[in-house]
């Protein structure tokens, strides 16, 4: 990037070349108010540029413009979304579990025994489409640093992924690269990948969603915050050298719609080095152990611009940085580029002068480069110097927090009524038992319902030796204390089809499903993080979807008592006029006092009784069946009843704790038959099912009514279990028994496990291997 100051009217025509090379200092900016500036190329709008001039009382320097452009980008400033995100705070349920809320690098939850858990989900969608391997890899790297910056040791990752149609040629390009990137980075960091999703839908063609979650564990007293206080304290940049990668990643890339005719945006994608990050993790944890930092921030989106302005803004305000001391990978980088670079594996710490030597020793031990680049001052300005000349002089808050706020217009799209009127009830149902059987196999073998082992077997799920449950289990579960068996469970879920049909309900269904998954494995849900993937906020229909979904999520969290601890918004997921399905992905974190009491999904023991918990209604709008068999999306999604979800969760947790159930699996995409098939295949046993009174076989097998789970109950526990459900008012219907090597629906059909396994296991390898 070269800053075009050549239009400077204050200099003689012959000085153009000299002016173009001249360092754009604060003093020079004051003297040349009319110099042309590339605000548009940097992704700023005209009124935003005018506002910067107003804040500074002069034109910004090139370096200042670079900082504002990245920090005021949609990605960093949430300018279109923050008026809606406010609800997560306003409607937050009262809870003692939240130690650190929204606004820090990640939220922190109290899980008892003195432990705190931090977790967060983020998107890395746009980079992953441009450069699948590096885009996905650096997505993992970024979220891991967020967790690390809170003071926690990262203990697990998860990656919800969404792609275009499974058989589309571009999916073959994008998916293997993204999966290899997630694995290549996470495996090399030594973080078990314990869950996530892989979803295919044509709506994600050209806009794959790569969301990444990380969980970290610390003791309460180890929580660190991103703030620079104490004048005289040193600002230390440590980790990788700064290079020319990822410049403008947040502004040019993440905050605009793809234009297929434009130039390649690959230079805006960062390049990751997981080995460097592993050293950074161990080095940082050792620094924390010796209590050497007063504040810390990772360098992610917007790089040094973000770290310096946010640290200063959250502290006492003043900071002075000598930018030319930053270690570079490429000596030709301009100050603007250094400020905007999103080079990976870097952290910024605020350290008392007396602790600097020890800090440096630990960095040397881990072969991590560390440099004092500045210090906290008693002023109120963030000042950045380049070889002694002042190139930035701004109030840090104006960069970090005073970005624009947009009240974007939103309106329920005119097609919404027609979509909802196009009910799934009119779709032809299987006419006889043979057709029903064929459709079960078709569903189980469809890309969205089939085994994702081809993907997840490329991730290390064992490293660190604390993995209690990992995919395809309902939640990923990690033991956090070897002596007490305290553990945490996390599940992520989202359903773009449901959310397209009704954004308010769809967001709540995502929340309900993740909540149910955590409870089904025996853990008590405590808090959530969300990744809100939507189209362009400049489209009123998309903004309406966003407004409805955030309202649904905030209301749902209030009702379930699970606060939003943080997350991320990804907008502009669209190509041309076509937006993705609105796709809020919800991650729920739960705690389990003794991981030995966890409930796995596998039906392992013959003779155990199968109970269906919850109410089954004829709900097929947005269902997997309607997609797989009829390629249909219309009608209304399943009704959501969060009080029922909460009751179901309590029953599942109690039954797990008291040893009343041996297996549990939540019912979601594909309904009962999908859940039973997965549990049977996992355990290596069949099941004999009986259609309960009042239901037809088709509805029994394929309905996607929410608030349901299937459990396996040992005969000795049956009475105790049904008594509990009866007393609490949760419908529980005995639907069969674990038995044999066939999934049999009495009076309808039977399918041998081998045939189900072939359908379930074969699909993804056949498409991608």
């Amino acid at each position, binding site marked *: 990037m070269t800053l075009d100051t050549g239009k400077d009217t204050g200099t003689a025509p012959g000085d153009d070349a000299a002016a173009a090379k001249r360092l754009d200092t604060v003093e020079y900016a004051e003297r040349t108010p009319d110099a042309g500036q590339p605000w548009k190329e940097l992704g700023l709008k005209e009124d935003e540029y005018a506002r910067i001039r107003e804040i500074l009382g002069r034109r910004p320097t090139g370096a200042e413009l670079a900082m504002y452009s990245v920090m005021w980008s949609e990605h960093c400033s949430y300018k279109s979304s923050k008026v809606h995100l406010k609800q997560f705070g306003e409607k937050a349920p009262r809870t003692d579990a939240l130690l650190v809320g929204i606004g820090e690098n990640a939220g922190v939850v109290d899980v008892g025994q003195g432990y705190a858990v931090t977790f967060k989900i983020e998107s890395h969608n746009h980079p992953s489409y441009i450069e699948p391997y590096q885009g996905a890899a650096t997505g993992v790297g970024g979220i891991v640093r967020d967790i690390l910056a809170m003071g926690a040791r990262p203990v697990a990752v998860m990656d919800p992924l969404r792609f275009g149609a499974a058989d589309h040629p571009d999916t073959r390009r994008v998916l293997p690269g993204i999966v290899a990137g997630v694995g290549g980075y996470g495996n*090399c960091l030594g973080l078990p990948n314990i869950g996530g999703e892989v979803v295919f839908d044509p709506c994600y063609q050209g806009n794959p969603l790569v969301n990444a979650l990380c969980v970290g564990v610390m003791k309460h007293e180890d929580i660190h915050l991103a703030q620079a206080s104490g004048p005289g304290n040193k600002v230390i940049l440590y980790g990788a050298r700064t290079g020319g990668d990822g410049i403008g990643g947040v502004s040019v890339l993440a905050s605009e719609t793809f234009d297929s005719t434009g130039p390649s945006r690959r230079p805006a994608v960062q390049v990751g080095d997981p080995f460097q990050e*592993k050293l950074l993790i161990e080095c940082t944890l050792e620094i924390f152990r010796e209590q050497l930092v007063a504040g810390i921030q990772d360098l992610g989106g917007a790089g040094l611009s973000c770290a310096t302005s946010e640290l200063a803004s959250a502290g006492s305000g003043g900071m002075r940085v000598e930018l030319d001391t930053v270690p570079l990978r490429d000596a030709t980088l301009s100050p603007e580029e250094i400020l905007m670079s999103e080079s990976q594996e870097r952290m910024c710490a605020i350290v008392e002068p007396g602790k600097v030597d020890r800090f440096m020793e630990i960095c040397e031990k881990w*072969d991590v480069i560390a440099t004092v680049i500045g210090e906290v001052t008693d002023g109120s300005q963030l000042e950045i110097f380049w070889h002694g000349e002042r190139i930035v002089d701004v109030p840090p808050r104006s960069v970090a927090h005073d970005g624009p706020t947009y009240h974007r217009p939103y309106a329920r799209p005119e097609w919404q009524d027609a979509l909802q009127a196009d009910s799934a009830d009119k779709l032809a149902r299987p006419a006889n038992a043979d057709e029903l059987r064929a459709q079960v196999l078709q569903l189980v073998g469809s890309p969205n319902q089939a085994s994702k082992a*081809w993907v997840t077997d490329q991730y290390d799920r064992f*490293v*660190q030796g604390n993995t209690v449950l990992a995919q395809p289990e309902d939640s990923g579960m990690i033991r956090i204390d070897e002596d007490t068996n305290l553990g945490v469970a996390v599940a992520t879920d989202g359903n773009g089809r449901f959310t397209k049909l009704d954004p308010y309900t769809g967001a709540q269904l995502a929340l309900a499903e993740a909540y149910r998954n955590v409870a089904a494995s025996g853990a008590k849900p405590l808090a959530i993080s969300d990744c809100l993937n939507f189209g362009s906020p400049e489209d009123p229909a998309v903004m309406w979807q966003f407004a409805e979904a955030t309202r649904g999520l905030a209301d749902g969290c209030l009702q379930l008592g699970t606060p939003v601890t943080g997350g991320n918004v990804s907008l502009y997921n669209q190509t041309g006029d076509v937006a993705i399905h609105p796709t809020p992905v919800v991650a729920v974190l739960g705690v389990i006092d003794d991981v030995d009491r966890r409930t796995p999904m596998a039906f392992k023991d013959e003779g155990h009784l199968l109970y269906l918990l919850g109410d089954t209604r004829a709900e097929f709008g947005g269902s997997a069946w309607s997609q797989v068999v009829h390629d249909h999306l219309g009608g209304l999604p399943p009704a959501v009843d969060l009080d029922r979800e909460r009751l179901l969760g309590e029953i599942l947790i109690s039954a797990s704790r008291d040893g009343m159930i041996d297996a549990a699996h939540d019912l979601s995409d594909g309904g009962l038959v999908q859940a039973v098939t997965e549990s049977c295949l996992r355990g290596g046993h069949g099941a004999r099912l009986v259609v309960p009174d009042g239901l037809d076989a088709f509805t029994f097998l394929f309905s996607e009514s929410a608030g349901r789970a299937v459990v396996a109950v040992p005969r000795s526990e049956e009475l105790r279990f049904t008594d509990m459900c009866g007393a609490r008012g949760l419908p529980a219907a005995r639907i069969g028994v674990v038995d044999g090597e066939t999934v049999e629906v009495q009076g309808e059909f039977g399918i041998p496990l081998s045939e189900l396994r072939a359908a379930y296991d074969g699909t993804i*390898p056949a498409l991608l*291997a």
Partner: protein
Amino acid sequence: MTARVGVVTFPGTLDDRDTQRAVRVAGAEAVPLWHRDKDLKQVDAVVLPGGFSYGDYLRAGAISRFSPVMETIIEQAKAGMPVLGICNGFQVLTETHLLPGAMLRNDNLHFVCRDQKLRVETSATAWTADFTDGQEISIPLKNIDGRYTAAERVLDELEAEGRVVFRYAGPGADGRAGGAGPTAGGYGNPNGSLRDIAGISNAAGNVVGLMPHPEHAVEPLIGTGRTDGLGFFTSVLKKLVAA
């Protein structure tokens, strides 16, 4: 006095803490060893754990083998001290030539993580005495450069001297016949290793290297739920206590 088992940490080592835990579960004392330190702190045996030391730069294990700690380990191994190299540790051992051969990229070109069945071909090593010859065990496998290769002559020699310690066997024990992952269709051998070799020993039997991970299979609650990996650590413990 209990046996002291050293666990080396190189930059980029990942399974050091897990291996220390496995040593403790087996009843020995785990002693962390640092790559820059030549001092082995009077340990009785050493484990080189898995991971991506030095980011696998140049070639897996190629840089670690030059670290100060390895100088002492090579010396001690030649003098008979039990040494176990797991995954990246196995790669380091081949780079030091304590064990012959090398690891290539998996034939399917993917990272493979799965529960892996192995056949213990010989119990006559420091690390397998608690198994029986021909016993089948299942422990996790996870790597991208795990395809064992060596010259035919070397392979013949390993076989003749009974130094093939583990071979890949059967389908993964998690019941997914052939594995549904990147190795679908590839029964047993997950990566194209020559003669299905998963692990080997030196002539004296004190140095053993293998690609799968015994340290991830020592507690019934964790990972695959099997404890087949514990035998590695109890084997060496008995040998040390007897010595």
